[in-house]
């Protein structure tokens, strides 16, 4: 363990050094102005005219969007109805979106205008600093957003949480995160493949950098201190978790279905977005949240909305972002339970088990810089221990 940690430290140091040298080296040639800052300040100084934006957007006629959620299609239909601007929305995973945006911008043949993106680490580590995407916050809506949701701009918050089958268990079977590492749950924890889910890797990276929470949880569960040093405890927890034969699935949908299927004895537990609980009605699932889990039930998963550099329909792109933040989030937040708009005026869904501020207390908030730094280490740890039988 110690060796590993040294390695991690060395890696971090090396990464930092390199990052510094890259930034330093890149500065001389970085002739492109920092678009995000100028945009932001411009927005504050000039009075924002929504009508003018609508007119300019309507002249452009359409807008192309890649989103991680298929509901962008419903948003598009409503947007077109309201403004008469066609939305070409496609569901696309994070790695593919990143690949496309980078390729398109580099080849100066940009096809996409707006991305709905979940990989905050890549966003803050590469796409924004290197100018591939532009963070545009609608000035009239900015006061309704909390400052940390503005940069980069979050348009959707979802709890990704541990949940269980309430038909199988009378009360939440997991009360403390350390239980997940115990033999009782070996091979019974379902999760979307971390290797293919950057946000889950980010979550694990942030667990590793929160030793105090883990130590406290350990003490409250086992009644004694862990005896593991502060810098190791996070990694030790992850290692034990990965060694407990997590079962990997392709989507949260699959996890929810498998955990929640009716008529199971000793059903597995799973890690999935709260929205899957909506299927309790449509698919007769028996999903419930791990209420009271210590130190957290999961993490807050943000979806960001950003404009792509040199996009073909910049005004329509801005209008779409404006729309999604003001009322266009409805397909996610209003129709079904489980997702929250950062817009403080948006009413939460009645089935949500509380407001967003209630949920934030139950969830770990992800620091994208930590995620960027440690992601490869977490991935390697997962590959090393998560694939052993």
């Amino acid at each position: 363990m110690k060796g590993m940690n040294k390695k991690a430290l060395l890696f971090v140091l090396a990464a930092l050094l390199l990052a510094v040298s890259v930034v330093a080296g890149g500065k001389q040639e970085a002739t492109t102005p920092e678009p995000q800052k100028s945009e932001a300040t411009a927005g504050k100084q000039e009075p924002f005219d929504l009508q003018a934006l609508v007119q300019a957007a309507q002249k452009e006629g359409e807008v192309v969007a890649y989103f991680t959620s298929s509901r962008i299609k419903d948003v598009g239909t409503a947007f077109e109805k309201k403004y008469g601007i066609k939305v070409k929305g496609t569901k696309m995973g994070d790695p593919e979106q990143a690949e496309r945006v980078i390729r398109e911008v580099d080849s100066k043949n940009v096809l996409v205008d707006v991305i709905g993106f979940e990989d905050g680490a890549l966003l803050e580590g590469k796409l924004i600093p290197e100018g591939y995407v532009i963070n545009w916050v609608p000035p009239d809506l900015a006061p309704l957003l909390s400052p940390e949701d503005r940069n980069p701009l979050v348009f959707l918050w979802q709890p990704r949480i541990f949940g269980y089958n309430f038909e199988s268990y009378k009360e939440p079977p997991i009360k403390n995160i350390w239980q997940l590492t115990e033999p009782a749950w070996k091979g019974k924890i379902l999760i979307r493949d971390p290797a293919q889910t950057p946000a889950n890797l980010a979550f694990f990276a942030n667990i590793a950098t929160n030793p105090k929470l883990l130590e406290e949880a350990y003490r409250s569960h086992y009644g004694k201190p862990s005896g593991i040093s502060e810098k190791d405890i996070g990694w030790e927890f992850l290692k034990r978790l990965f060694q407990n034969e997590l079962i990997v699935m392709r989507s949260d949908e699959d996890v929810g279905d498998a955990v929640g299927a009716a008529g199971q004895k000793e059903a597995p537990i799973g890690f999935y977005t709260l929205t899957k609980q909506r299927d309790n009605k449509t698919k007769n699932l028996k999903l419930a949240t791990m209420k009271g889990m210590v130190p957290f039930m999961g993490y807050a998963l943000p979806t960001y909305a950003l404009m792509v550099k040199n996009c073909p329909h910049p005004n329509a792109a801005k209008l779409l972002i404006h729309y999604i933040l003001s009322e266009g989030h409805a397909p996610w937040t209003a129709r079904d339970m489980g997702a929250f708009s950062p817009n403080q005026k948006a009413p939460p869904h009645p089935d949500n088990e509380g407001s967003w501020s209630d949920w934030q207390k139950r969830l770990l908030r992800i620091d994208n810089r930590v995620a960027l730094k440690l992601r490869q280490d977490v991935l390697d740890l997962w590959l090393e221990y998560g694939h052993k039988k």
Partner: protein
Amino acid sequence: MAGVWAQKMRFRRFVNHLRLLPYDPTKTIGFLICAALAYLILAPVLALLLDTVRVNLRDSAIIGLPTGKLTTYFLQRTFLSRVSDVLFWKPFWRTLWVAGAVCAIAIPMGALFAWIVVRTNLPGSKVVSRLMVVPYMIPSWTFAVAWISVFKNRRLGGLSGMLETMGFVPPDWIAYGALPIIVCESLHVFPFAFLLFGNALRSVDSQLEESARILGASSFTISRRIVLPLLKPALLSSFLLTFSRVLGSFGTPYILGSGVKYYLLPTALYNSYKVGSPGVAAVIACVTVLIGMSLVALDMFFVREYRRFITMGGKGAIARKHSLGALTLPAVLLTLIALCVTILVPLGTLILTTFMHRPGLFTVDNFTLAYWVGTNVPAMVGQKGFFLNRDILQSLQNSVWIAGSASLLCGLMGILVGYVVVRLPKSKVAAYLRQVSFLPYLIPSIGFAAASLSFFAVPRGPIPSLYGSMSLLILVMSLKYLPFASRSGISAMMQMGNEPEEAARICGATWLRRMGRIVLPLQKHALLTGVLLPLISGMKEQSLVIMLATPGTELMTTQILRFIDYGYTQLANATVVGIVGIIFILTFSMERLTGANLASGFASRG
């Protein structure tokens, strides 16, 4: 003075050359094709090699090195790091083991049925010999999709498999991993050995065996000393080609292996690419290319070695058939069982599931037409039945468009290559063209796709970035199938004499006119085959396109995997049934149009 004169002459010769260009551009065209193929085939492979030691865009954010920097990081990570076991070595050994096991099942199976069909008086052996090829005709992953529909258990989530619905929960080792992959691949590739052994057995003169018997050899000695040695080339070929097929197939290990983290090289490559480490993916791709090349090289070596054995002599050969006698019934039963297991059961299961809400639950109200014609499919948000489904129709259109254009392009290139090779015999151009146009055959599909993707994703000279475009798919597909088209082009052009063209040239016809009025009409048969075969392969292609297809350019074959990923079992199965239907229709019409026997067509070592 002399120098000036020579210069003048050279200039005049050049002008003359230009004037004659419309009449005899063979050389020019030869050079152009050479250059084009070098750019389209050789350059991507070199670029792939370079990618193994150069920091890629997406890697740069994670490993903290600037894009374009040379590094050994990817090689170390793939072969020597603490994760190299998972990234490379395990998939590598597993691939060898699975491929070996498939050979061990498929080759004896194919050889046995070849012997029964060719060497015995099995009733209806003509029909059987045609039906035996069907499993190879239908796409390889059909078996995997059918398998998962039956054996899927809770572990994968989504809709449960038929057996689980009926109350029997299959254990993981039956549902996923090595066993099902080996079984499904074997069922798909055994016709390969069947065809090779069938041809070999047909050419073995049974008089050899009879002479041996007259001389008093036991039947064991006869098979050991006479039949087996004569079948050795078929055995080696089917071993190497079966092996390389398994190495190149993506769909089956993806569908049956991913759920239990059982990766083979193609899926490991795909994973590394998807996870966002193109560098490691390039290293794995290079390994698959290396293995693929050595397998084919070995095969060609053996084929050449065994040319020395002449099995068709000047004397009339007799292929006497053994009488099955009392064994007739068992042989017929065995054949029927094989045909059922390899054709009827998988296709029947797939068709059946598309009519059931919960596959495996046999109650009246569980049957439905919703997955074919429904406007709102239950439990699949926003999806409609097969015939109304936008995703499926779009992918069908893409498949037809991509495979269609690719096969046309491929057929034309094939004829052109053939023309140049035959009209410029013994030239360097001809030798080079023969080799380069054959190169894609040596490279496993997924490695070829990886190479093309990394090469054409950025703008290069006059060619814009082709990332995510339809043209990339068309281009890559037509290049991958070029070996077959150019071979058939060469052999077709060989049969055509120079005279008709010379006559036309004397009458003043330009090259284009000669091509349009003489060569192509005379070669329409070869052209048709050269277009239809790639078209059929293209419609069922998956390994080649999985890394290239993106939302918007999704093909039917990749759409199936998306459906499986979402857990939309019935729609996936309906799409498979759709493709198989299309392939049957195409094959049938090809037989009708060209008079070619499908068995001989598919025996061309595809």
